[in-house]
């Protein structure tokens, strides 16, 4: 199975690889997946006083599609409000990267990582975590 050009592009030149200060109140961290499953994503967002995501970073252990999905997610997150970020759907990632059916779980993981990061940020700042529907994998 060949990878799409967009997956190859994100895989070869991953955007926003790195680490933000986990301890900062402005930073939300989402760590999803499990090593036994062959996929772990860590996605971090930095949020300003207007609830805008000013920076996003990721690190991913996984296949090319998992790396590309998280790279794309960070690209989309930057500049978005937290509320808009909540609306990112895994199927948007599937479409953008032209992921085949066997790789859809990579996009689900990226969506989960975004939501986990937002909830971490909310909890740190005294807000209730958003109730997430049981993810579909």
């Amino acid at each position, binding site marked *: 199975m060949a990878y799409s050009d967009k997956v190859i592009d994100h895989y070869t030149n991953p955007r926003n690889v790195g680490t933000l200060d986990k301890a900062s109140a402005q930073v939300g961290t989402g760590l999803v*997946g499990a*090593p036994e499953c*062959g996929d772990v*994503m860590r996605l971090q967002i930095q949020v300003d006083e207007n609830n805008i995501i000013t920076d996003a970073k990721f*690190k*991913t252990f996984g*296949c090319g599609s998992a790396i590309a999905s998280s790279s794309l997610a960070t690209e989309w997150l930057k500049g978005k409000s937290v509320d808009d970020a909540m609306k990112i759907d895994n199927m948007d990632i599937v479409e953008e990267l032209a992921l085949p059916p066997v790789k859809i779980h990579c996009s689900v993981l990226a969506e*989960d990582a975004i939501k986990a990061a937002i909830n971490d940020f909310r909890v740190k700042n005294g807000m209730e975590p958003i109730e997430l529907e049981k993810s579909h994998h």
Partner: protein
Amino acid sequence: MQFIAAKRCKSKTLRIFVWFKIHFMDIPIYLDNNATTPMDPRVLEAMLPYFTNKFGNAASRNHHFGWVAEEGVDYAREQVAKLIGASEKEIIFTSGATESDNLAIKGVFEMYKDKGNHIITAVTEHKAVLDACKHVEKLGGKVTYLAVKEDGLVDHAELEAAMTPETILVSIMYGNNEIGVIQPVKEIAAIAHKHGALFMTDATQAVGKIPVDVNADGIDLLALSAHKMYGPKGVGALYVRRKGPRVKVTAQMDGGGHERGMRSGTLNVPGIVGLGKACELAGQEMEAEAKRLSGLRDKLQAALTVLEESYVNGNVDHRLPHVANISFKYVEGEGLMMAMKDLAVSSGSACTSASLEPSYVLKSLGLSDDLAHSSIRFGLGRFTTEEEVDYAIEVTKKAVNHLRELSPLWEMFKEGIDLNSIEWAEH
């Protein structure tokens, strides 16, 4: 070394082939010789006439065309038999090792069902053996799947304990396709025989790579394939012992009664001729080739295990000369292969499969799932050059380091966080 020998070879095709290999390094580089091997140009040369003017049906006993084809097949039968120390009457040509495994296991089960219904095999066998055994279970047979030790070897005591008066067959592979581990078949055969059972071995990865002798090893049935030893795809053989004891298998295909009634179907004459030639070449070159390949493999392995947290899978003292299976912890195998796109290798990770289950062979060595996901199999071959190995080392090192920079697990490891202490989300 072999290349120099090949340069002096009579075959013009091979001389040209070798000249190209030496002067131009082809990219991508093929290091997946356990999956299949490129065909040796000398094998192709031997096969070609049998597609055209020697096209006859080997079963046409009454005219020239049939005789010519039959001669080709007879000669190939001798070449195959010689490589494994058998007599030519003990070689049954098939479509490949999967068919040979099926014919041996199902055929023995049917033939000897009055004697017993129990078969013993191991969990690290190829699917062709495991699935044939599962079929036998559906037919009412009993199968014991032996666990293996951490290094991939079968435990003699466990085998001994599993033997029953009902046991008719023990089937243990010669060399493993994923980790290259070589089983002590001689000892295993002796245990099987002591209890009155036959011993079969799937020797697909071993024949042509290391010396295999059916008499010295005590093998009653042996499966082999041409395309794993520089021959064509779609042809293989089953060795069936004729003396001490005389072994019989029930045919799994009905038809014209070819191959002494054990395998009907018009013989694949060009393929069989190719298999024969591949066996002849392996017999002549195996010793030097094994030495050269284990040298290159050891070089590759030494250079890659310099990387932190990399582990060689399986027993390294009893291993096929051309294989190294290495796990690079904190990096996922499929992602790694993508970064090594100029190398054709194989991974124990199965990110693409619906089950997401990593290699069952690696898991049965007791490897954790994450290490199994991190494994890469390097399979060197007759046409692998040192230059290619050097290149592979560079590409792999770079890819592992690059992906570790991207890996949250590597970062945690470096920070001294115990990954087992983390509560990973359900996935």
